[in-house]
Structures are given as C-alpha cells and as structure tokens.
C-alpha cells in the first residue's frame, strides 16, 4: 500500500471512519421487482414551454417526465403532437419493422451467420419517433442502438444486413463490427463503437452548419452509461458555448451491459438534469411513449432551427433485452424487470392508441407484423447471396489497405503485397485477391 499521512487510520483516533459508497441496483436475478419508487406522472400533466424560452424557465422539465399516451390509450396535454392517423401508422410500421429486423438478426448471429448483434427492443420509439421529428437531411450522429433511424429514413435493409454479415456486398468493405453502419446519403454518421465520441462531433457538425448559415441541424444519441465519458462533457460545453443547433439525446435504458444507471450517477439526479449545469434546455421524456418522443424531439428541433440553442433530452426507457449477443442479462438482473417496467412497451402502447382512436385493429397489427417478418426474411436471403461472415465471400484482400489514407503510401503498398502473397500461399491458384 502507498504511504499515507500518519495517523489517518491510527488506533485511538476518534474521528468517524469514512466509508465508500458503491452503487448497487435494487434487483438482482431472482429478486421480486417493485418499481413503485419510479415516479410516473399523469400523461398530459407537464407544461410545454415555448421552444425559444430561456433554459432557466424550464428547470422543472429536467425532473418531470413528458408523457402523452395515458392509461386510457388516448393522447393528452400540451405535448400531444396531434399527428394524423397515417403518420401514426407509419410510425408504428417502422417500429414493428425495427423489431422484426432485430429478431431476425439476433437469430442470424445465433446461427453463426455473423459475430455480433445488438437489439433495441423496448427502445424503438427513441429512434423511430425521434427521427420522424427531424428533417430527412438533418445530420444524425447515432450510438449503436439506433437502427430505427435507418429504417425510418428508408436506408435499404439489404445494406444493413450486408454490413452485419461483413460480406462482399458490405459497402463498408467488411471493416466494421456488425451494426456500425454509415450512410452519408441518409445523413447518418459512421458509428464508432467507442462510446460518446459522437456527441461532441455532432456539436462540431452543428457549429459548421451555423457557421455556413445552413438550416440543417444535428442530433446525437448516447446511452446513459456513456454520459460518464469526458466526451459528453465536451459536447455539452461546446454546445452551450456556441449555442450550437444540436440535440443531445440520452437514452436512459437503465443498463450499461451489467452496470446499472447508478454507475453513471442516476442515484443522485436525473440525466436530463445534466442540462442545468451547462445552461442547456433539458427535457425528460417517457421513452416508451412514441408520441412523447416525437413531440420532445420536434420541440428541440424547432428550438435549434430557430437559433434558440441546443437541447438535452433524456429518454427514460428500458433495455428489454441483453446489451448485445455477447451477454446474458439473466446473470445480472431480475427477469421481472422487463414485465414490471412501469412505462410498458412502446410498440404496444402506440398500437393500443391507434386502436383506441378507431384507426387500427388487432388483425391489421397481426398482418403487419407478419409482413414485416416476411420482408426481413426475404431481404436476409438476398443478403446471404453475398455471403455470411467467415465463409469466403468477403472483399478482396487489397481493400484492407485502402482508405487508411486517401493515397496508398509506400509502406502500405509493401504490406498489401505481403497480404496478397500470403493468400497465394494459403490458397494456391485462388482468385486474384
């Protein structure tokens, strides 16, 4: 042990002993779950401040919970975005498609078609509805659980699967871990895999847009666990300093792999309250309420577009499945959490709302779910024609060296020759790769 000041823990010292607090989640495997400590305000009870208001006028928003869909499945209050039924059905369709996609890809990983997958089950509204509230050319800097944005923006599903399989059709040339998509055409930034790095980058993009007198804004998504990263502090600081037209979305899904939100500070305050110290507008939103998600994101988008400044939004939700295909959530949390979660399921709630307003029914839902599953299955087959991970249908070896730099320097040319030589030794007479 390192040397300590003399007497700090000496016998006979009458100063009280200090003790270290290490957060512990309320429930572990096998525990009975009781979420009554979570305050769930009535839908429609939160006021909706003016989009251009000073952040100091809306401090209470950081501790409340914007909710639109009530227990009666009706939309309530000032935050009701009053979307027409067609738009609501579209929203439901994107969410259902996202869920169907997740199911199939998760299964594909279990079948050995790829190395890794991450579902967003239970969090679909936080990407689909939020994305619908943005313009199609607003730039998004997602984390790794926002596949709903690509589905909402119409990115071809086959490109997603090619990427997940790292096959010869993968536009990213098989370089990235599955689900780390990129699509400039869809204003979707390349996903890093390192956490929270995208948050200050989004601020930089937004600053550039403002510098150029553009009208496009930026939005970024980050998990509650990753808000502990210094990058998040950088993002908040630059956002507030330059009044950047950016939306910082925090997806508080309660769990970062096996560490609960307490390890990012949730025992002390809300994540939306992070906004207060920076002088940012902060909103705390029911992340399983698709209408509330849409309304909050639209509020922030309008604010940014009006040069009124950045917004930090906490979407309070629950990660219904494991972090990824690489962890088993039954090993660290109670299985009852998912069923007892007080904010329900986002797809079910939106469906029930559409049914309640007479614009949908269970049969149509069943048909839609079936069609979504069939569509994903069909596209998966198409993608499999381009190969699955590790079965030879990958990009040529030389592509490994491309795009390190714009031009290949001498040392990479030499290493490229080496790689091709190795392939020829391993596979004599093989393809010219």
């Amino acid at each position, binding site marked *: 042990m390192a040397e300590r000041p003399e007497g700090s823990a000496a016998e006979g010292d009458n100063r009280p002993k200090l003790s270290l607090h290490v957060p512990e989640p309320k429930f572990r495997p096998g525990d009975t779950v009781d979420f009554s400590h979570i305050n769930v305000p009535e839908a429609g009870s939160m006021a909706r401040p003016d989009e251009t208001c000073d952040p100091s006028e809306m401090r209470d928003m950081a501790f409340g919970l914007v909710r639109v869909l009530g227990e009666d499945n009706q939309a309530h209050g000032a935050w009701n975005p009053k979307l027409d039924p067609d738009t609501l059905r579209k929203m439901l369709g994107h969410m259902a498609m996202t869920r169907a996609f997740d199911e199939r890809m998760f299964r594909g990983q279990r079948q050995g078609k790829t190395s890794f997958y991450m579902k967003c089950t239970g969090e679909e509204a936080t990407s689909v509805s939020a994305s619908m509230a943005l313009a199609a050319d607003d*730039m998004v*800097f997602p984390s790794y659980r926002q596949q709903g944005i690509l589905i909402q923006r119409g990115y071809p599903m086959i490109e997603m699967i090619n990427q997940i399989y790292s096959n010869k059709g993968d*536009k*990213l*040339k098989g*370089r*990235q871990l599955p689900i*780390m998509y*990129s*699509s*400039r055409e869809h204003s979707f*930034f*390349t996903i*890093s895999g*390192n956490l929270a*790095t995208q*948050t*200050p*980058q*989004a*601020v*930089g*993009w*937004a*600053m*550039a*847009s403002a*510098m*150029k007198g553009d009208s496009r804004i*930026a939005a970024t998504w980050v998990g509650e666990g990753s808000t502990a990263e*210094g*990058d998040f*502090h*950088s*993002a908040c*600081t*630059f956002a507030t*300093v330059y009044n950047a037209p950016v939306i910082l979305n925090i997806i508080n899904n309660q769990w970062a792999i096996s560490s609960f939100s307490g390890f990012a500070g949730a025992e002390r305050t809300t994540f939306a309250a992070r906004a207060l110290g920076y002088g940012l507008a902060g909103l705390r939103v029911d992340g399983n309420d698709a209408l509330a998600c849409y309304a909050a994101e639209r509020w922030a988008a309008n604010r940014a577009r009006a040069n009124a400044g950045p917004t930090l939004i906490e979407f309070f939700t629950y990660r219904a499945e494991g972090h990824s295909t690489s962890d088993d959530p039954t090993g660290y949390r109670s299985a009852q959490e998912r069923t007892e979660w007080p904010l329900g399921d986002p797809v079910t709630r939106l469906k029930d709302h559409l049914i309640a307003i007479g614009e949908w029914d269970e049969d149509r839902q069943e048909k839609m779910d079936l069609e979504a599953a069939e569509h994903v299955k069909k596209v998966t087959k198409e993608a499999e024609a381009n190969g699955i991970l590790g079965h030879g249908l990958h990009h040529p070896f030389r592509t490994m060296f491309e*795009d*390190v*730099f*714009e031009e290949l*320097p*001498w*040392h990479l040319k030499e290493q490229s020759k080496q790689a091709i030589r190795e392939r020829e030794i391993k596979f004599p007479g093989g393809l010219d790769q």
Partner: protein
Amino acid sequence: MSADANTCQSNVSSGTERRLNMIEAINEALDVSMQRDDDVVVMGEDVGYFGGVFRCTAGLQEKYGKTRVFDTPINECGIIAVAVGMGAYGLRPVPEIQFADYIYPGLDQLISEAARLRYRSAAEYIAPMTVRSPFGGGIFGGQTHSQSPEAIFTHVSGLKTVIPATPYDAKGLLISCIEDNDPVIFFEPKRIYNGPFSGYYDKPVQPWKKFDASVVPEGYYKIPLGKARQVTEGEQLTILAYGTMVHVVEAVCKEKGVQADILDLRTLVPLDIEAIEASVERTGRCLIVHEATRTSGFGAELSALVTERCFYHLEAPVERVTGFDTPYPHSLEWAYFPGPVRIGEAIDKILKD
C-alpha cells in the same frame, strides 16, 4: 528528395527578399489557406482576438471574422471532436493545441475517430483536419511544456505527422497539410520559432533573418508531404533528424568538421524512405537524432528500417541520439536535451567503427 533543397546556411542575402521567422511563416500559411478556401477555419485556446500564445494566429480573426477564427473552451477532446464534426460537414478545420503536451485529452478523438473515419466509413466520411501544435523543449517549459510526442502519432494508422525545421518549409508544408484530405499532426518546434538553434543554450539566439531558410515567398506555394530535405551533403555518414535537432546536428558537424549527409525528414508519416536508403547506401553509416525520449521513439522505427533495408551497405551499427527516458526536467533541461556532447560522441563512435 525535394528539389527545392533550401538550406540554412547563413550570410547569403540579396536585400529585397522577405525574411520571416517561423511564427510569421505559419501565420502566412494560415492566411493564404483561408484566403483561398472559405472552408478553412482556425480554432483553439487563445487563437482568436489574442492571436495565440505564440502569435501564430495573430491578425487572422480581424481579417476573417469570428466564425472562421475563434477561441475554444479549454477542452482538447472537444477541440478535436468538433473538428471531426466540422470535417464531416465539409469544412477544413485547423485546430491549434496550445502545447503538444496538452494533446493527450484529445487522443481518443484523434486515434479512434479522426484517423479512422475514412477507413471505417469506406471513405464516406473523412477528417481533413490539420492539428497544429508547438512541441519540443529548450524554452524552460518543464515537463508539461516541452514534450515531443510524435511517436504516439506515427504509431497510429491513418494519421500523418509533419514537422518543419525552417520558416520556408513551415509555410509550404502547412499549406500542403491543410489541403490534404487526411488528418495531419503538424508539430512546430517552438525552440526554433524565432531562430535556428546550435545546441548551445548559453549562446544568444541567432534570428531567422540571418539565414536563407527564412526567405519566404509571398503567396501560395506547397512543399509535398513525404519528401525529405537534404540539409548538407557529405560522404562520412548519414544523419536523420527533424525539427530543432536538424539545426543542432548541422552545427555539431560544422564544429567537428564532419562531412555528413544530413536529411531533414520533414514528414515522419509518410516517410521519404527512398531518400534515406539512397543516402545510407552511399555513406554506409547512419545516425538518428531526436529530442523525444528514446524507448519506442521514432528513432527506433528509423533504425529498424535502415537495418532492414540497408544492412549490407552498413559499415557500423546504426546509432541513436535522443532525449533520456525521463520526463523533461525543468532545471536540468539542458542535461536532458540531446546536445552537442551527446551527438559528438555518437558521431565519433560511428566513424570509428
């Protein structure tokens, strides 16, 4: 090797030429680049109204306005990160990190983000940024204002590392870096901002204007990345150096009457391997000099390359002269610095073998 080999020999002057120190040359490179391309933006701690702690950005905010030249929070992670975002938008940011010693909070954004964007997105997104930062010791900066961390960056795939040694080169290289579509680390040897350095700290600084390499043409010119500069020609040995050390080895060789082939590498990645091989094959002896700490320094890479590629031409083991593997001590700065004694000893050894 660059054809415009612009040496540092003194006493040549024509009277009408413009002579700039390195700070003025860097300032002019920024000015020229901003003039030519509206997408070039300059940011960093104290670079705006004040013009930078070393004055490299003086006058730029006044000329180009606050949205193109601006101060930033003291947050190097954020400085690099917003530059990544701006690059994704289409700008060509030139962030300044006030001292190379402060760059570490921005490392993840440089190594995992800027350096990888092109690769991970299959060129959908790039990071065309030039990170300028004063580096190196010799100004009594202590351990946090003296470091030479270039090897951290040369080790990263996707980053270019450029280090000028003269005002002429500083301007031409910086313009090339800014126009480059890959992220570049541009380390400015701050000891020689105002004049080249002989290695004798107790002698007065000779201002740049006494040296030909301070003749800096007006307007636009570029020095290509990846091309070394032949400083002196000689048959006895090859000396590979960059930044401040170029001038120190030149002075030592002059003093000792050694005829050395001194190469100023200018760009560490991509490296001018052809110039290095050609020189070592001719001289058969190679000394590598840098100010950075020794273990895993860039000298180790150079030594390995020379050994791998020129082994049968070598008549003596490759030697390295470097800083010691300690933090840069404040009061013992000149004991750390790889000065004339350490370099002279190595030259004697390599010539004796």
